[in-house]
């Protein structure tokens, strides 16, 4: 197998990790003002992701770094092309990260309310914008012969991409709600359950709308292959299963199901793109071959990544085990 193909898969894996883990972090942040009213409730919600959110965010940094190392042209075209969108994402992530740490450090209700807003907006904007970004990549962008995006910021805000943004926003919120169901107790847990039931149908409908939209707005039909068909089935089946398990009050399984939907979406997107990484509407596609590093760099990075990724997975899994308990009313809070 070409190392380019391996790295394409590895980057898909890193994005899956990022979207799965940060997905529920974003969802928790978005739901914060709606499922928790008192200060103690708010703190318990934030503490559900307290020990893990930062480690989860490193999946994004690693995906970005891996893209830079393995496909410099992909990294350069994507990051310069989505300049203003990424600026908004960065601003959101900065405010949100600091908010977790600062919020409960002072007793003032105004101080805490300010950071609660930062957590909400800082989670909502990236949840929406990652969907917009991926939908645009799938749709194809005006990329010229020098691999430079020549469109504007407002070209990125087309209806198809915005529906894509709503899909990730809805999916992450649902995923986060299911995570919260598993990690909270008492009043918050009851609020979360109501929220899950309200969210499921609109999220499923918008996802179906996006898939139908994709048949017309992208070249999905002409590029069906085993992997993106499986991805498509997984995405839809995951959502349906989540609905079923919610109905049966089996929330752990419902959470796994929304996780499978996220995996399915990544498979769908990456397998439809392959071997392109950024299709161009001007006929200058970036592919895993013209965007990649030299074989030597890919070899070095392969050895490093294949050694370290399993270790990272092992100790991150261990931390989820350490912090497996629900945050109930008697729990000790740090954030």
């Amino acid at each position, binding site marked *: 197998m070409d190392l380019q193909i391996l790295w394409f898969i590895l980057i898909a894996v890193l994005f899956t990790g990022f979207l799965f883990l940060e997905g529920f972090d974003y969802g928790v942040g978005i739901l914060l003002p709606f499922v928790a009213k008192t200060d103690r409730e708010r703190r318990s919600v934030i503490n559900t992701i307290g020990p893990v959110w930062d480690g989860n965010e490193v999946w994004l940094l690693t995906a970005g770094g891996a893209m830079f190392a393995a496909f410099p*042209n992909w990294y350069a075209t994507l990051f310069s092309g989505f300049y203003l969108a*990424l600026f908004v994402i960065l601003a959101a992530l900065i405010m949100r990260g600091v908010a977790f740490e600062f919020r*409960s450090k002072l007793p003032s209700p105004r101080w805490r309310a300010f950071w609660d807003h930062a957590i909400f907006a800082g989670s909502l904007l990236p949840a929406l914008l990652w969907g917009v970004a991926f939908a645009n990549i799938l749709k194809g962008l005006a990329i010229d012969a020098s691999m430079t995006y020549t469109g504007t910021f407002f070209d990125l805000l087309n209806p198809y991409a915005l529906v894509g943004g709503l899909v990730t926003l809805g999916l992450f919120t649902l995923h986060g709600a299911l995570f919260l169901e598993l990690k909270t107790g008492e009043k918050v847990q009851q609020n979360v359950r109501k929220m899950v039931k309200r969210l499921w149908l609109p999220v499923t409908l918008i996802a179906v709308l996006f898939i139908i939209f994709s048949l017309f707005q992208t070249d999905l039909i002409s590029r069906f292959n085993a992997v993106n068909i499986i991805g498509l089935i997984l995405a839809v089946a995951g959502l349906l299963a989540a609905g079923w398990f919610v109905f049966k009050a089996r929330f752990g399984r419902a959470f796994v199901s929304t996780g499978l939907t996220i995996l399915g979406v990544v498979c769908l997107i990456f397998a439809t793109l392959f071997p392109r990484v950024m299709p161009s509407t001007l006929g200058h596609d970036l592919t895993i071959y013209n965007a990649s590093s*030299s074989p030597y760099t890919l070899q070095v990075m392969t050895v490093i990544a294949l050694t370290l990724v399993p270790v990272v997975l092992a100790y991150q899994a261990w931390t989820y085990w350490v912090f497996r308990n629900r945050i109930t009313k008697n729990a000790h809070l740090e954030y």
Partner: protein
Amino acid sequence: MDPITLARLQFGVTTVYHFFFVPLTLGLSILVAVMQSLYVARGDEKYKRMTKFWGKLLLINFAMGDVTGIVQEFQFGMNWSEYSRFVGDIFGAPLAVEALAAFFIESTFLGVWVFGWDKISKKAHLAAIWLVAFASNLSAFWILVANSFMQHPVGYRIAENGRAEMTDFFALILNPNVWLQFPHVVLGGLTTGAFFMVGVSAFHILRKKAVSLDEYWLSMRLALGVGAIAVLATMLFGHAQGQRIADTQPMKLASAEGLWHSEDPAGLSMFQIGDETNRKSVINFRIPSLLSLLSYNSTNGKVLGLNDLQAQYEQQYGPGNYIPPAIWLTYWSFRAMVGAGVLMFFMAVMGWVLSARKNADTFKPRWLLTAMVPALLLPYLANSTGWMLTEMGRQPWIVQGLMTVDQAISPNVTAAMLWISLIGFTLIYAGLIAADVYLLQKYARLDMSGTGKLVPWTGRSPAEAPLKDTI
């Protein structure tokens, strides 16, 4: 302003800001790990209180370094896409390794440390903070591997398509520049952590309002010892770096010295007013031969001046301006960095000697304690000016000798877009640093006894609510 100036300004602002927070994380994480080791080894609750107190300050600081670091990774692609295409092969690799090998450990185990006090065994919990300290400093290593390539490119070839390609990963790691810059930076971090502890402890020892002053005294003693050694070692590695750039980046040395014309032997400038338009100095007080001595360990030796290097580079690289754009800044940055270093060294040694066999009540003189409080800003001055010298002194190159900054910029990022992000980041960062300093000064004034009481700034400060449920 043109896009290049704006993009450079944005990189400067975001990087200097990011590096306000990083060194304290590097140094204080090690010092907190040492204090917790003492707690685990001796079982003395005093050390646990110290660990928790300094750990809180570490966390408030860590959050800022963490989130501003994401910007650093993204903006190479956002603002410098041509640079990213040209060196991605080489520069991307250490960045990816930094995330995989260091950031994951750092973030994951910091979470374990903060939330795991009662959840895992004492020893596993101690291991968590050591992993955080180790991984933070490891991340400094990888980013400096990347930066060293920009200062002194090695282990690469220029491929047929014009891109730089990696040929030897180990040459990148073994880049001599790394092995001077990395110790210089992490020891600078340790100095920052130590002076932070000294400054905060000195405040409490002066005010004498905390229930038990012992913890602050122990903290100060530890930090003075570590600080004296760390600052001396930082300066020695800095000196070695200076000697090295005499060889590899003579333009940077000349710009640090404001040396317009080559001299043999060269004198060390103490105070200079230059005229950058006419490329000469107007007023210059010098100590004869000292620059030659510092550069070559000999009272003789030619140090090349900016004008001669300009002529030499024009021959080598073609017509253009190869003199860094703000000599006054590199010149004064160098002096601020060295001045801060020397001052810190004397303060730390003096404090260490005078505090031996004393305690918080008997320590004299008081003026030294008073001076130590604002002295916690000295490492910040040295850290910032050090990077300004390193990066400004390399201009107009982005990668020394291979690519200039104006070739590196993203072609599709307009001045308007840059204004939006520059103003946006500057405002967000200004707001956050205000919030951060506000929080730090509150938590630094905490009484370690665990009551949440704050020691007031002065005898006349208004009463403040205790930080009861947040410690």
